């Protein structure tokens, strides 16, 4: 993967387009639940392990998760140094595994799009 400054704008645009698609897709679940009678949501709280990452990384992934319809960051666990974990509330994932798979997919895509020369 070429993580140079030169490709940064293209990677950012690519990520923005993917994120826009993701928002449309997850909006559909929310809209369907909102417009039909009864409740289709299967709410859950999952612990997402981010690993050894910077403060900026934690803040950015938290913001992106909250901006995505149906998911909400509840906060970071622990003292805020070393190994990072955040708690995420999800409304429309069938189980914890699929929720974490989607969240980690977003984390990896974000990391790839903002990395410059090996550091996020």
């Amino acid at each position: 993967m070429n993580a140079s400054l030169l490709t940064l704008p293209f990677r950012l645009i690519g990520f923005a387009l993917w994120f826009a698609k993701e928002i449309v897709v997850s909006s559909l679940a929310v809209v369907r639940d909102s417009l039909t009678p009864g409740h289709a949501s299967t709410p859950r709280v999952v612990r997402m392990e981010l690993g050894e990452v910077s403060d900026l990384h934690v803040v950015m992934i938290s913001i992106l998760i909250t901006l995505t319809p149906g998911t909400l960051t509840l906060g970071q666990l622990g003292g805020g140094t070393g190994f990072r974990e955040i708690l995420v509330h999800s409304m429309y994932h069938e189980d914890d595994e699929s929720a974490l798979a989607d969240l980690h997919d977003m984390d990896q895509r974000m990391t790839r799009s903002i990395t410059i020369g090996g550091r996020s």
Partner: protein
Amino acid sequence: MSVLTVIAYVLILAGVVVFAGAGVGLLKFRDTYMRASAVGTAAGLGIALVTIGAVLTMPTTANLVKAAVAVVLQLATAAVGSTIIARAAVNSGHAFAPGTSLIDLDEADAKLAGMPLTEESGPRPSGETSEGSSV
């Protein structure tokens, strides 16, 4: 109508749809966390879409600059604001809707043995500390 105006109206329409979703969600969802989720989305994306759409109807340089700053600030702060409220709700023991799967939260509680989310245990210091790193 010019092409620019059409684009502007489409963006404003998208923003209004996001807003309407948050309004319906606020009335219909069962607990604080689902409502905060709906509002977090609308606050960031709804305002951003409406503002971009509005500025395209009168695109002077000054307006474009102000709107760009407003959109960036809005995207950065709105989601953090919702997270802050949700985190305070968890810390103060607001109930989750019946049926919510809380395995990970209970595990985290047991592991931290009563340590509240993101902040050190013990008495609260008078000033707020490490806000940026703890969100």
